[in-house]
């Protein structure tokens, strides 16, 4: 059995990936809304997003709503696949009954 993906196998990053996986495949979510759904501090969320971005699992795009800058976060194709693989691995580890 291969090791669980260490990038996703951490509570905060798993919750981030689980949330992003609920979006449309071409969808993205504004940083403040993501923060609200996760109940995480902005600093903490940024730290974990950076780690996920370094692994190329998420992409962050800065845009403007009027004059206010907003960052939109989305999973990349490989990120979505990595999350699905991770969940599959968990289910296999638990004997496929879960």
């Amino acid at each position, binding site marked *: 059995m291969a090791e669980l993906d260490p990038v996703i196998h951490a*509570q905060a990053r798993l919750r981030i990936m*689980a*949330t992003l996986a609920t979006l449309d495949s071409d*969808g993205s*979510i504004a940083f403040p809304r993501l923060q609200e759904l996760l109940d995480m501090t902005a600093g903490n969320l940024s730290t974990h997003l950076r780690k996920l971005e370094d692994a190329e699992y998420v992409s962050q795009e800065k845009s403007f709503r009027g004059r206010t800058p907003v960052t939109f976060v989305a999973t990349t194709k490989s990120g979505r696949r990595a999350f699905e693989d991770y969940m599959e691995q*968990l289910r296999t580890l638990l004997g496929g009954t879960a």
Partner: protein
Amino acid sequence: MTTPEVDDQPLDPAAMLALSREQQSKVNTSYARPMVYMLGSWAIAWGIGFLVLWSGVPETNSPVFVPQPAATIIFAALIIAASVTCAVLGIRMNRGIRGSSNYAGAVYGATWSIGSTAAAAIGVALLNAGLSSDLAGLFFPAIYSLVVGIIYLAGAAIWRDKGQLILGIWIIAVGSIAPFFGYPGNFLLMSILGGGGFAVGAIAIAVSLASTRKKVSRG
């Protein structure tokens, strides 16, 4: 809220699986909860609004008599309040979220205004052509129910939602059967079965949210 040091750690596989499910159910709840308030506001608008309209017709022998002009104003105010509630909640539900389903959501939202404006325009044209107020009392609730029901069916198709499918069929059935009961009996039917249908829908979602929450917290 956990600290960065703690939530950088993994848990055992079962707990991680539960954590992921719990988070996704939290996201789904953030979409489903406003639906309870939306359907609830229609339950109040139809339930009370049509009842007040019915009690405004002298020959109903309603225990409470509301003069017709006042009844019409109360009814209109309740419908407008419910429409505003839904528009605000609908926009809030999707705030900060982009994706291909945004287009479907925007068209769905606009369909409410397009459909109800068109229904009102047809009714006004018939009134101008000499439709009596008794017949107008049969026509307006029926065409409005048809519009509302078909929009719920569209919602069911877009979001593959069985709840909206059932509600859409129910509202269309109530709206098209009510005119057979004649004016003003149709108002009472719209109040009880139409308003009641929305109330049942709101309660069903609230109950399913509560049971999901229990399931998730049990792990």
